[in-house]
């Protein structure tokens, strides 16, 4: 049985915070609104007060707990390595269990449960039609990311695909016998919004002869539900995915989405013994490709004379796991690209799961900072390794009225591969 930790289980970790305040330098939400309740130190103090029964679940407590992107930037720099993002997620679950899901995030739970509300979801980005959205399962993270009533009309959203990625491809694409077999955990972003990035991944793996299985019955990793405090949803999604992991035979599970990677490697292992065996099998696609000496193969291609300047945005959920070199290694090896580093490539884009839905103004402020760094870099494209980041980066760029594009690194890889 998958079981998420409860706030009480974090007692010792909460005590590890020595209130040094160092997190104030790294928290994107604090950077946008200089209030102590936004920053990790404040949230730890609040979680501590909740455990001691010193504070009620109302007013500013709820607001402060909703004001966290779960990006883990604070954890990455914390001298005592306190996982504030996990503590905030556990606090949100505590709020949901005591007061009902709808208390948190102005009704995230309502959306989860109410099919009728979901169908209103047409207005927002213009690109969302009722018909298309019906294709997305009730529990997909995308439902949490785009609950209709909270979508601002000035937000850029990618069009939902008429034919989701997993419906486009066979269950298995055989490769060479001496090469590994991977299970592609597609995630909702690639399945419903950016299927071409999924196809690009298949192209890259085919190029090196890797066998790919794409189980149809895989579901959302559950990270947006973690963000929403919806414990039961996370647990049931995790169990469904666990069954998929158990039923198939493969060497590795690859992801092309930083959030999914984090869900599978950080959230799942805490949910029960049965998840632990998969932790080491899960690999970000670029880590896998670098291990397969894919960068060397790309480097053999003749460099183009006119190359496009491309910069890289580190998704928080890869940066926190120390995955920063591999995506850059692939980018730098591409023949059509001139790689340029931007300032603060590792700061959050501002999406933060459900964060940007409920705090779009703050989210935009964080995104504007990022858009500034992208502009200063002189790059025409910003590439990354997470559909969520791509969506947010494109929105931020558009708000800055820049004519740049946010793309998945895989899209650039596919451009130079045959077939």
């Amino acid at each position, binding site marked *: 049985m998958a079981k998420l930790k409860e706030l009480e289980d974090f007692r010792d970790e909460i005590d590890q915070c020595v209130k040094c305040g160092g997190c104030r330098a790294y928290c994107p939400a604090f950077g946008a609104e*200089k209030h102590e309740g936004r920053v990790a130190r404040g949230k730890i103090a609040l979680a501590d007060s909740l455990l001691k029964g*010193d*504070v009620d679940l109302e007013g500013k407590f709820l607001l402060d707990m909703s004001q966290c992107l779960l990006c883990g930037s604070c954890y990455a720099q914390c001298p005592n390595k306190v996982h504030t993002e996990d503590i905030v997620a556990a606090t949100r679950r505590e709020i949901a269990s005591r007061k009902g899901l709808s208390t948190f995030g102005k009704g995230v739970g309502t959306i989860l449960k109410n099919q009728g509300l979901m169908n209103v979801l047409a207005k927002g980005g213009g690109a969302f039609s009722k018909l298309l959205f019906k294709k997305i399962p009730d529990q997909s993270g995308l439902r949490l990311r785009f609950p209709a009533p909270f979508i601002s009309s000035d937000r850029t959203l990618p069009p939902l695909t008429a034919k989701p990625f997993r419906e486009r491809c066979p269950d298995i694409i055989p490769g060479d016998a001496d090469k590994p077999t991977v299970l592609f955990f597609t995630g909702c972003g690639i399945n419903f919004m950016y299927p071409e990035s999924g196809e690009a991944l298949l192209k890259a793996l085919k190029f090196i002869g890797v066998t790919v299985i794409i189980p149809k019955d895989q579901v959302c990793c559950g990270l947006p539900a973690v963000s929403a405090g919806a414990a039961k949803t996370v647990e049931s999604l995790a169990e469904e995915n666990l069954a998929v992991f158990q039923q198939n035979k493969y060497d590795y599970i690859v992801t092309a989405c930083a959030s999914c990677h984090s869900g599978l490697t950080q959230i799942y292992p805490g949910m029960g013994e049965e998840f632990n065996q998969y932790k080491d099998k899960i690999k970000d696609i670029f880590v896998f490709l670098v291990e397969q000496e894919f960068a060397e193969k790309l480097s053999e291609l003749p460099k183009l004379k006119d190359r496009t300047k491309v910069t890289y945005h580190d998704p928080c959920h890869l940066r926190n796991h120390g995955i920063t070199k591999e995506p850059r290694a692939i980018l730098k090896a591409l023949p059509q690209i001139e790689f340029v580093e931007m300032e603060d490539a590792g700061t959050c884009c501002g999406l933060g799961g459900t964060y940007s839905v409920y705090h779009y103004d703050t989210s935009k402020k964080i995104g504007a900072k990022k858009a500034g760094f992208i502009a200063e870099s002189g790059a025409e494209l910003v590439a990354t390794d997470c559909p969520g980041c791509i969506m947010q980066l494109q929105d931020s760029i558009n708000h800055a009225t820049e004519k740049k594009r946010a793309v998945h690194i895989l899209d650039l890889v596919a451009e130079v591969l045959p077939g």
Partner: protein
Amino acid sequence: MLDKNIIANLQQISGKEQVLTDKADLICYSYDATQKQYLPDVVVHPGSVEEISQIMKLASENKIPVFPRGAGTGFTGGSVPTAGGVVLGLTRLDKILEIDEENLVATIEPGVVTEDFQKTVEKLGLFYPPDPASLKVSTMGGNVAECAGGPRCVKYGVTKDYIIGLEIVTPTGDIIKTGGSTMKGVVGYDLTKLICGSEGTLAVITKIIVKLLPKPEAKKTMLVMFDSIDGAAQGVSDIIRNKIIPTTLEFMDGRTIDCVRQATDLQVPNDARALLIIEVDGDLEFLAKQVERIAEITRPLGVVETRIAETPAESEALWQIRRSVSASLRNVNPDKFNEDICVPRSKVPEMIRKIEAIADKYQIPIVNYGHAGDGNIHVNIMVNGKISGDHEKAEKAVVEVFEGALELGGTMSGEHGVGIMKAPFIDMELSTNVVDYMKTIKRALDPNNILNPGKIFPSDR
């Protein structure tokens, strides 16, 4: 609890959204890095000096305590609201108002983050040296109030050496200016220096005039490992006797090295019982020679190994050793008493030996590192709060550490200040008539004792 009218008045002064009374908000402004918690009645974030003046007048009339606050990163409780009342958050006043490149002077607001200010002036080829460990988040107002130090102070001095003028709001609400923009100025008392390090007890700082230096062209870092603490201490003395003042002269004792070795994969030889991280700055061509000279000076003093960084990445790797100390200490024990005594630099080895004897006496781990160049030792008494008696032992050890420092002609605090943490001990260092002299000033300027009350002085007098 404050009267509803007071809250309404505060809202009138600073606007409704800047006046916080929700329990969650009060919790978020109840602590600093001492981890002591005291709930205020209200948190206000004023947007101008005029608002602050009005708030102080209101507080004076109604005898409400006011606790000025920057980033809340102090180690002695200087900003915690020990008596309810108003937390006066100054982070909205965060503008760099002027950088005068002709006169090398900048005017800034108190909420400016130290590192932001440094980066801004460095882009212009200028330099603001004080570098407290919290500089990425600490505010300049807090730095002035506590007279912050840092590793570079051995060469460049502390915060007060760079503050030439202030705008302040007095406890009774008057707005006054101290000092000015000139390098010299001797008309009347030096109130600027009085306010620097007064821990927010005499005035609310609303504007700061800072003296700047030209930015040194380059810097070079080296690591020297010794087989004894005496070798390292002698090294410090000999370097300075040879007329070389490095930018930083950081030391770690044997116990600290052990901690780092256990917690990380940093390569430090087993026979290294003390080390110095030395950085020099200045003209590029000059630095290589200086580093060679330091290596030469220290060579006869039981040097185990010397590493000289040739690239910024190598320099970074050396500093990583120093930076990994704080986290690695947790492997010794989960909690610590972090003291920052300062002794004449020639007395550092004697002080370390005293501390080692105290550690043995109380059977409690004490690790020491810090700024050897100016004799400022960070004494970390490691305890486990869950073991009964550990805290009591540590408290006794702290007193003996203070006694030891004072015997050697030192002080109980080089950087952190007194606040509430050291207030019970100041009689050990300051004679009654000195404390009385200070309290006379406090009483004259703050007759109602409303500005950051309960700090510096023991509460029983």
